[in-house]
């Protein structure tokens, strides 16, 4: 298992390097100059601009620029935000926990909905429950998060007036009240994202269980008199989870897209809304760093999926 883990970790390094290469190429190909503003600013003499260019190595060959950029990214030296006047890594670290919390709870909610429904549907295919569940999953999967978010606001905040639709980081209450307010404001963003995830995961889960449930060893388990509940829980679900883990890992970029949108709708102060505000403010260092963080998270989640894989199916880690 250790060897397997080590191999997986080592494999993700070239992937990260590849992603960074793509990002850097995009930046290098982009028209415009990061020092354009200085060029048009009459208060900055051209010598100073040339000196700055030399200092930042903008005229070096592209391969050297890439290597320098990548090593400083890896060292955590992400530059300086033009707009907020603080280091980019501090800015991002302030926002990251909120995003991880929202995405994590949404994913958890999705799994909690998807696994039971998917398994129950697959054990009774074409039953009334299955038909309803499949249709709901299809509808949920076709409902874009930006529309569900607006519908939720319309219904729960404006019509019923139950939940706040603006996420606030500065809640003045303390103790239980503080926790309650935090949970209350997180309900809608987490639900929007979690339900969207749940709909596609239900589909994955259902078809994976359908695949596994007719295999011979399941029939054997039943034949030797195991209770149906035990057969399903211990023999079917665990094996059905293997393809689901891959698919969920492949879906991670979609979760980030959803998180970006929900953060924007509910004004959650995470890195997604930071990305949007940086784009609107032309704050290139922050934009690059956030895209890099998102890529890093994708690689991280793929790694986690690989580890789960090894746990779910020990044969994989012995290869």
């Amino acid at each position, binding site marked *: 298992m250790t060897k397997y883990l080590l191999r997986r970790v080592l494999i993700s390094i070239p992937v990260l390097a590849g992603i960074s290469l793509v990002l850097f190429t995009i930046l290098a190909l982009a028209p*415009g100059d990061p020092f354009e503003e200085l060029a048009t600013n009459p208060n900055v003499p051209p010598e100073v601009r040339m000196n700055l260019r030399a200092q930042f190595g903008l005229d070096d060959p592209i391969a050297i620029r890439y290597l320098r950029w990548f090593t400083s990214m890896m060292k955590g030296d992400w530059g300086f935000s033009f707009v907020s006047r603080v280091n980019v890594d501090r800015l991002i670290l302030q926002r990251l926990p909120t995003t991880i919390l929202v995405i994590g709870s949404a994913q958890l909610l999705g799994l909690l909905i998807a696994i039971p429904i998917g398994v129950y549907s697959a054990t009774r295919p074409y039953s009334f429950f299955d038909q309803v569940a499949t249709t709901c999953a299809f*509808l949920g999967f076709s409902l874009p998060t930006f*529309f569900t978010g607006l519908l939720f606001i319309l219904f729960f905040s404006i019509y019923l007036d139950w939940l706040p639709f603006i996420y606030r980081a500065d809640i003045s209450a303390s103790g239980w009240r503080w926790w309650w307010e935090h949970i209350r404001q997180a309900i809608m963003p987490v639900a929007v994202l979690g339900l969207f995830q749940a709909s596609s995961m239900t589909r994955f889960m259902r078809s994976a269980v359908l695949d596994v449930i007719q295999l011979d060893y399941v029939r054997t388990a039943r034949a030797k008199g195991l209770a149906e509940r035990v057969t399903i829980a211990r023999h079917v679900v665990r094996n059905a989870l293997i393809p689901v883990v891959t698919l969920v890992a492949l879906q991670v970029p979609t979760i980030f897209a959803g998180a970006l949108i929900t953060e924007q709708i509910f004004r959650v102060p995470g890195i997604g809304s930071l990305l949007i505000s940086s784009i609107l403010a032309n704050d290139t260092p922050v934009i690059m760093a956030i895209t890099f963080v998102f890529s890093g998270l994708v690689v991280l989640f793929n790694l986690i999926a690989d580890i789960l894989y090894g746990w779910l199916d020990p044969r994989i880690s012995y290869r």
Partner: protein
Amino acid sequence: MAGSIPASRTGSPAAGAFAGAPPTAARRKSSSLTAEAWRRFRRHRLALFGSVVLVLMVLAVLTGPLVYRVPIDEIDFKAKLKAPSWAHPLGTDDLGQDVLARMLYGGRISLAVGLSAMLIAIIAGTAVGAVAGFTGGYVDHALMRVTDLFLSLPGLPLLLLIVYLFRDGLKKTLGPEIGVFVLIVAVIGGLRWMPVARLVRAQFLSLREKEFVEAARGLGAAPLRQVLRHILPNSVGPVIVAGTIDVAAAIIAESSLSFLGLGFPPDIPTWGRILFDAKDNLDFAPHWALFPGTAIFLTVLSINYIGDGLRDALDPRKVL
């Protein structure tokens, strides 16, 4: 595939027996491949329903602006944020502009983005998959690594980054409308070809070794002819299915981008853009957001159902 349970519930024989006249044995024998696919597609009632809705949508955005001749940018502050009425069937926005007219016009762009991005994704994906699957070996390995790399790119953040970096340049060279359109279509398509490439490669790997291809090879067919005449036509089914789903995904991607205020400019009211403008007025003008949102939802839902039906019709393998 060991499965005897079809993935789609409408693919069940019970559901099939109700739709349409059961084909007689004689008729089935004489039917071509396309007719056979159509027969299976017809069984999927929701897919049929989706096709009808989608056709109506396309007709509406194509002919709508010709019939419903209200200008999209006529500002009338006396009629601002009005709920649906006879004068404005879908109400008005904060400048008193007619929502129906804007939706009909913007729908063209939304649908056009979906279709063009799908074409790019399919062409790029098929090319990569075909080369990888047919050549095999070292080339295949390299191309598949690139595909995996693209699969682990964070889609929407990257889309935002590229649009941010290239928008002004393209706007200058191609004009605001076409520039943004080309950029968005190219990037969405360029970030969605990977599943198609994988599908095509898998098809090619198995078809390459089939007897009929070997026969063609034995008869001296050049590699290009083997691919174009024999392998590609046989691997087109899954590609069509993936392409259908890609249209829906591209429409969602474009709407997301416009919804974040970073897609099309406000004078090109795509559905996502209307939602972006409407989202701060939800409490007093919910209609403004509900109509374009429903349009996106219905379009995506119909396309997804069509994709589901096409999968039953064209792709006998059980995919998700």
